[in-house]
Structures are given as C-alpha cells and as structure tokens.
C-alpha cells in the first residue's frame, strides 16, 4: 500500500511535465496516434481486398491487432522506459545508485521510468478496437466485455514479462541491443494470426515465447472461431500465463541483481 502511494507520487511528477510542456506532449501524442492508426489502416486494407486471411475477416484482424497494441501500450507505460534504458543505466553506472535507495530496486526503477508517451497509441488502438467491435458480430454482453478486459490485462502482463526477459540479460552482457532487436521481430509475428505460420513457428509462439496468448487465442475465444485449427478455450490460459511470466520476470530481475557486479564507471 505504501508503495502504491509512492508510485503515484512518481507518476504525478511525470504528469506535471505535461502541464509544463503541453506543446511537446500533444505533438508526441498526435505523432504516435498517426503512426499506429496508419498501421491499422494498412493491415485492414491488406485483408479487405482479399476478404479473408486464413479464415479471418478484415474487421476480425482489426480486433486482433488492436488488442495486441492496447496490451503493449499498457505494458509500455510501466515497463518500456525502465527496461529499455536498463542497459544504459548499467553501462553508465547509474544503476548502482538505485541499489543504494531505501526501496525495492525493482520498484524504484519502474517508478522512475513511468512514461506517459503511450497515450497516442492507446487512443489509436482503443478507437480501432471499438470500430472493429461495432462492425463485428460481437455480443457486447457484460461477460464478454469482462473477458475482453481480462485478456487485455493478461496480454499486458505478457508484454511486461517480454520487456523484462529481453532486457535483464544486460546485467551480464552489458550491451543487449541485439536481444532488443530480436524482441521487435517477435512483435512482428504477433501482427498476423498464428495459423498462417508453419507448425514449427506455431510451436515456438505458443510454448517458447507465448505471444499467441496475447491476441490470437483471446480473439478466437471472443468471436467463437472454430475454423483456425486450435481450441479457442486456450485463451483462458492468458491471464495465468501473464501472471506467471511477470512473477518469473520479477524473480529473474533479483537473481540478476544478486549476481551483478558493477561496471565500475
């Protein structure tokens, strides 16, 4: 509880900078909105001309991509800055400073790194999600909406875990740029449905790096799709996998800190 109010204090400081530089804030929000909206439009056009992509219609694909970006953005608020900057903190020795604070270093890292720059992404992705839902045969019952929210939170947790697992190795290898580039590639896979890939890649995206639980199974579940070669009920694992991976990531962080020797700079 104490941590919650402290985190809110960190967030408040960041939000104050919006008030101070409103121009920069709106420019960034608009730029990111355009960036993601254009991707959604192109993905829609891609499927629209061909009517179906491996059994998915254009609006179904819109729901599919928008859930992924919503989950990614939610994770990005809390995790992008702390972990994308981790390798820099370690290189420059500023991470050592965090260990001296009378706080949980994981918490301090995350609090300090809160980023409001994902609002543009969120507006674009939630807007797209609404457009998709309105145009789909989607029952907006209380149960369905609750499940949608649960899936998004589960997906956000999986994205959080990905941020952690791909950046924490910086404690050992210092320059982890290559790993981060690999992570972008994985995000590319999540932009299209799992059933367009071969068995090997499907196995990889379900078991090794379970990104198909972020949007593929959830959307299949919500739309009751049975023509995609997988049981949509697998989606129920999404929140479980999200929580498990995040806890593992947290443990991994402390394991890394324990074995960390400063760069001495």
């Amino acid at each position, binding site marked *: 509880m104490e941590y919650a109010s402290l985190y809110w204090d960190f967030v408040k400081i960041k939000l104050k900078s919006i008030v101070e530089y409103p121009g920069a804030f709106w420019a960034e929000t608009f730029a990111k909105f355009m960036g993601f909206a254009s991707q959604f439009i192109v993905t829609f056009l891609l499927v629209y001309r*061909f009517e179906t992509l491996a059994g998915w219609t254009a609006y179904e694909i819109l729901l599919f991509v928008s859930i992924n970006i919503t989950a990614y953005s939610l994770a990005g608020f809390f995790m992008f800055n702390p972990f994308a900057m981790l390798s820099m903190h370690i290189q420059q020795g500023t991470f050592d400073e965090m260990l001296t604070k009378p706080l949980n270093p994981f918490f301090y890292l995350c609090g300090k790194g809160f980023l409001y720059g994902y609002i543009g992404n969120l507006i674009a992705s939630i807007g797209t999600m609404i457009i998709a839902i309105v145009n789909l045969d989607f029952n907006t019952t209380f149960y369905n909406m609750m499940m949608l929210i649960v899936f998004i939170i589960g997906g956000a947790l999986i994205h959080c875990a990905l941020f952690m697992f791909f950046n924490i190795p910086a404690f050992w290898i210092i320059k982890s740029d*290559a790993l981060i580039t690999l992570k972008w*590639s994985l995000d590319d896979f999540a932009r299209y449905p799992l059933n*367009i890939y071969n068995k090997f890649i499907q196995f990889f995206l379900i078991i090794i790096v379970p990104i198909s639980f972020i949007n593929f199974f959830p959307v299949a579940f919500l739309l009751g799709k049975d023509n995609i070669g997988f049981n949509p009920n697998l989606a129920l694992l999404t929140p479980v996998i999200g929580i498990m991976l995040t806890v593992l990531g947290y443990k991994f962080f402390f394991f890394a800190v324990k074995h960390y020797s400063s760069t001495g700079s």
Partner: protein
Amino acid sequence: MYNKYKDVIKLYIEFLKKSFQSQFIYRANTLIRIFTSFIFVFIMANVWTALYSTTDGIVDGINLSEMLTYVLMVEVVRTVVLLPVSRYVAGRAKTGIVSIDFIRPINLKLCAIFNGLGENMLSIVFFVAPIVVIGSLIWGFVFPSRPFQMIFFIIALFMAVILYSTMEYIMGLTAFWTKTDFHINWIVNSFMTMFAGMTVPLWFYPKPIKLVADVLPFKYFIFEPINIFLGKVDFSGAINIIIMQFVWLGILLLIERFVWHFAQRVVTIQGG
C-alpha cells in the same frame, strides 16, 4: 574548372566512406540485423501466401510469385531510397554544430545525403543482398522481361533517392524550430506506411484511397519504381511516372527553399 568539381566530388565521397566505415565497426550486430530483416520478409511471405490461397491465383492481374518479388524488392528499394537525411540535419541543429556548417564551404544537404548513402550502401551489401538471394531461392524471383523495365526502374529509383532525401532534408530543417525531428518523422512515416506501398502495393487499394495516394508524392518513393520493375505499367506509363517524379522534385525544391530561408532566420535569432 574541371579540377574544382573533381575535388568537390572527392570530398563528398570521403563523407560516404567515413560513414560506411563507422557503420562497419558494429560487425557483431550485422548477423542479428540480417536475421531480423529476414524474419520480416518471411512473415510477409507467409501473409501473402495465406491471402492468395483463397483466390484463383491472380488478383488484379498480379500472381503470387510477382507479389513475393514485390516483397523482396521493397527491401531493396527502401534500403536505397530511405536515407536518414533528417536525422543528420536535426542532430546538427539540436547540438548547434550546424553553425559550423553555415560557414563551411560545403553543402549541408549533400553532406547529409552522402553520409546516408554510406550507411545504406553497407546495408545493401551486407543485409539486403543476402536476404534477396535467400528469399529468391525459397520463393522465386520474377525478373523484368523487357529491357525498358530495368532501365526505367533504375532511373525511377535514382529519382526516388533525390526526391526522398529532399523531403527528409525539409523535415530535418524543421528541427531548427522544434529542436527535434521525432514528431515530424513519425507523422511523415505514417503517410509513408499508408501511401508508399511498403506493406500493401497500391494495386490492391480501394478506389477512393488509391485516388488520395495518386495525388501525394509518397508512392513515387517505393511503389512506382517496383511497379515499373515488375512491368505492370507500359512504356508510356513508365515515362509518365518519371515525369511526375520531376514535377514533385520541383515542388519539393520550392518548399525546401522556402523553409531554408526561414530556418536560417530562426538560427540567427537564437544565436546558434
């Protein structure tokens, strides 16, 4: 007179070499970059194969192997054309180094272009060439059947480089006001995503959106050169495209002059 031009060219070639070398130092990242670019092409090939599997093989006059060649050609063309000119200019504007550029007897725009060319030539040799070779072994490659396609493709590609770097240069100049090229880059990139044909070629666009793309310059950077390469436009169509590239170059150069005029003023006011 002849010697003077020779020296100038030598100077810019030096810029190209330096940037080529500085990129080459990060050899460790090379393999990973080939891998990730290949993944991207691989994903797109999967997407197009899945899309075509429900059709009778030809959509809007394009078959799957032509489409897969398009995907590979996008990698080639974007690497040649998309020079990071704005990043170079904005970086110098932000740090104030640009004040030196004003008194140097060299052209800021050309420095930025040759610096970018150095980076991108390295990318062509080390990243794109292997991907195109591997890609064409897996998915095949449709070569131009008539000589004019190849010749006009090269002309259109050359024009695309000049056009695009002029646009990037204008974007970079705006950093004289905003101190960053981040926002304008994202916004222009979103137009590139929609109208340059990097993901979806304009053949497949619905009429109204195709009309918008037709009146904007973005399709001349990526889509139209490949359109010529694949022979989807005839001889006169190809000439039309190149004429339109010249028209757009004229328009962009006018805008550049205008922006440059004001950019210089802003810098003077700030004192560098």
